[in-house]
Structures are given as C-alpha cells and as structure tokens.
C-alpha cells in the first residue's frame, strides 16, 4: 500500500509549516524524512496519520483519501508520534492490549500479537512494570511496540530511535528493515548514519519545502559540495582567507581539535588539488598534508539545509 502526498500544505496562523509538498512512498520502501528542527516533518506526519487535516492538498493511502476515509485508513497505519506520549500509569502489557483492542485486533489474536511485539521490541524483561517505571529507552520501545501491535501495512515513525542504546538502535534498525520489506515505512530522524543504514530513499525538507528526494547515492552525486579535503599548510599570512578566495572553493573550516588543518569543500577533485598545490608554490607555503575525505550525508544535509 503506497502513501502519496500531493501539494500538501499546512498553515499555523500565518506561518506555512508545510508548503506545497509532494512525494510518494511505495510498498516495500523505507523512506527517511530529514530536515532541520522546525522544518515540518512532524506536521507532515500528523497529516498523513489523519490527526490533522491539511490546509490544502491531499494525502492518499492506497486508494483512500485521508480527508474523506480517515476511518478506513487509521487501522492500516502504525504511528509513533514525536515525544512518544504514553499512559504512564498503565503496565506495559495492559497498555499494549488496550491499544490492540482499540486498533480492532481480533480478541483471540491479542495475546499472541502482544507477545510478538514484546519480543521484537526487546521488552521482555520490563513487561510487567508500569510505564512510568521504565527508562526513556524502554518507553521508546513501548511506543514502537504499540505502533506495530496490529501489524499495520504502513508505518509512520517520528524519530523512532531517540533515547535507545547503541545495541537497541541496531536491533530496531534491523526490525524496521525487516518490516520494510513488505510494508511502507516513513521515518523521521536526525541521526544521519541511521538513514544510510536503514532507508532506501531520503527526503529532505526545509522550511516546509522538499529540497531533496532520492537515494543517498543520488543525493551525493547531485550535491554541489562533492569533494572535501583536509589540508595542512605552513606559511605566513592569512591562509584561511586566501584559501577561501581560490576558484571552486565552497567552504573552508577549521576543526577545534586540529586547528592547524583546514577542511575545504570544493566543486572539483583533481583540478582543485592542482590549484592548491600551485597556490602554495606561488606563496612559498609548505603543503604538509592533503587528504581527500569521503563525502558524508552530513555534508549533503548541511549543504542543502543551511543558508
């Protein structure tokens, strides 16, 4: 079952939190939804899950429109809202049965479904505790478990791995990958390595507008800031500003823990290395190091969402 979002907008007063965005998520696809704080990820997810209606535009899940057939769509979606709100006074098992109940899981299937999600979310040790007695990471697992309880075709997860320990992140990642084989998954996150590890495709949103949509690889190819070098230059004068004025330079940065080395992003590879070398020769500087760095998703993210 696909999610298809067309010209979707949401205004809060005069602010356009989501501004005319369109995208699709196909069955069997895991899409990572990225963007800086306040970009509109959560707002978009609230509209997809029929919690809020759009100011304009449509969201379709399968053949159903979220505006018109919300009640048909809701049972198909598993949703983990941001901040993972839970009934703290309920014991874990009781809470999961309650959610199963209101999701319309068959009465006779509830115990087995609960057991399954308790297992797959690693909740076995804590399942008899009240939710308020759980640590943040375990609460997050309960949130995930309730989203999965009715075996939904569509999963919408708003920052699912916040607060999890590294082991659990890997486990949840594998779980999402496994689920994602047959289902449609849209997840938002700020952990970029996670996106590369889990998602088939990436959507980047900024100020309510989609600024990138594609695989991690295709985004890397498209990005202007393709090449990054770490260089160490010894010499007189203001090297940083001279480097910035070289042709084809996108940015020059110094990391606090290595103040003598500059991180340069540039549009080209070999021609740019030659340019740096020539610059040093011309000024009489010593070029002590020049290491090409692998372009990371972080760089792309920053390139697309800053300025």
């Amino acid at each position: 079952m696909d999610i298809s979002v067309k010209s979707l907008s949401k205004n809060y007063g005069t602010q356009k939190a989501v501004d005319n965005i369109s995208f699709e998520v196909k069955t069997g696809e895991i899409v990572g939804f990225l963007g800086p704080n306040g970009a509109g990820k959560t707002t978009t997810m609230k509209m997809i899950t029929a919690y809020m209606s759009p100011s304009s535009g449509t969201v379709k899940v399968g053949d159903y429109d979220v505006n018109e057939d919300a009640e048909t769509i809701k049972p198909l979606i598993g949703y983990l809202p941001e901040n993972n709100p839970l009934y703290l006074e309920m014991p874990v098992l009781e809470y999961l049965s309650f959610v199963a109940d209101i999701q319309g899981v068959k009465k006779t299937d509830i115990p087995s479904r609960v057991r399954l999600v308790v297992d797959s979310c690693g909740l076995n040790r804590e399942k008899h505790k009240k939710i308020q007695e759980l640590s943040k990471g375990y609460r997050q697992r309960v949130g995930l478990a309730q989203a999965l309880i009715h075996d939904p075709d569509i999963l919408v997860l708003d920052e699912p791995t916040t607060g999890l320990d590294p082991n659990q992140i890997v486990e949840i990642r594998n779980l999402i990958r496994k689920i994602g084989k047959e289902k449609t998954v849209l997840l938002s996150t700020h952990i970029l390595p996670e996106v590369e590890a889990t998602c088939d495709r990436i959507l980047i949103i900024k100020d309510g507008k989609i600024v990138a949509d594609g695989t991690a690889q295709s985004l890397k190819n498209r990005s202007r800031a393709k090449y990054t070098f770490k260089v160490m230059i010894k010499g007189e004068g203001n090297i940083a500003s001279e480097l910035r004025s070289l042709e084809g330079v996108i940015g020059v940065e110094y990391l606090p823990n290595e103040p003598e080395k500059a991180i340069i992003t540039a549009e080209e590879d070999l021609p740019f290395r030659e340019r740096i070398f020539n610059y040093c020769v011309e000024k009489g500087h010593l070029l002590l190091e020049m290491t090409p760095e692998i372009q990371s998703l972080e760089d792309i993210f920053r390139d697309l969402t800053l300025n």
Partner: protein
Amino acid sequence: MRKIWSIAKREFSTYLDSLVAYILLVVFVGITGIFTWISFTDVFFTNIASMEPFFGISYWVLFLFIPALTMRMLAEEKRTGTLEVLLTRAVTDWQVVFGKFLGAMILILVALAFSLPWYLSIAYLGPVDHGAIIAGYVGLILMSAMYISIGIFTSSFTDNQIVAFLTALVIGIFFHWIFELVSNIGKGVWKEFFYFLSTKTHIDSMTRGVFDARDLVFFLSITVFGLYMAEVQLAKRNIADA
C-alpha cells in the same frame, strides 16, 4: 462497541489506580450516610420513613464531585499528548468521547450502588414509597450523566485540568441552582423557562415518584448536547489555522 468499552474500562481503572474512586466512595457513602442517619431519628417520631434527605444531599455531593472526575479526561490527554495516540488509532472521536463518558458513568453507578444499604435500612425501619425511591435513583443517574457530559465538554477545550474543573462547576451551578433562583423571582414565560432549565425541578419531580417525559428530555438533551460539543471541540484540530 468493543472499542468504546475498552476506553471506558481504561478510564475506570485510572480512577481505581489514582484513588479518586475510593475518595468518591468514602465521601459519598459517608456523607449520605450521616444525613440518612439523622433522618433515622425522625422515623421514630414521625413514623414516616423517607429517603428525601439522602436525595437532597446526593444532589449536592454528585454535583461537586463529578467535575473532579471529568476534568482530567481530555485536558490531561491533550497536555501529555496521549490524545494524539488515541485519536490516530482505529477509533472515531465519538467513540473516544462516549467511552470516557461511560467510564465516569460506571463509577457513579458503583457509588450509587454503595448507597443501597441506606435504602435497605430505611425500608426496614418503616414503610417507604419504593416507586419514588427508584425514580429518585434514576433521577440521580440522569443528573450525573448530564454533569459528566458538561465536564467532558469543559475538559475538551483546555489542557489545564483546573480550568476544566472550574468551568464545569460554573456551567453546572447555573442549572443546579441559579436558574432556580431566577425562576423564583421571574414572571410569566421566563419563570416557566427557567423553571424548566433548573435541575432541581426535574430531580424533585422524580424523587416524588413522578415519571414525566419532560424530565427525561431535559437530562438527555443536555447530556447529548455536551458530548456532541466535546466531539466538535476535538474535531477542531482538523480545521486549518487552528
């Protein structure tokens, strides 16, 4: 129906967990008990056994207690965000509102059931009008339904429990007391109008054992209207720019 029931059950069990249920039971059964006992002494003088003191005090205890039961219902879920989880599950807004209504209603029914010993002891001591007492109980149930619905409504437009509690009391006091006063000083059509809007009018007629369709219409229409308004309030999240 099963979903409404699960929601009602969850609400009821939060009452049990949070001691609210026990406080209500102790206070309600205790206070009504004291008043009923005082009237026991009357029985020996007048030889007429009556539940009127019981109904008179229940009228106020329930009125004051119900907003404390309902204030949490939507306000707290809004504040903590659990409302978003609830409303994105396979339930309609109406099922959520009605389930919560039912949860509070069950607690009131339990409290009323705990007052049955007073009824039985009165009946043991002297001749009572069973019809009137049953009608009186039905009246208290209908009145509770009405105030629960008003309380759920006031809980739907704020995320602050205290605000929900106070507005429920303010709206409630009009029906409970002020309309009666207005009717007493009013004239003609207005007198009639406020007389009809006063809860007291309908409770009194029921405790006298008179079943009148107008009483039923009064309680049920306000109940349905309150729940409907709560649902409308929930649906407002859907309106753009809200």
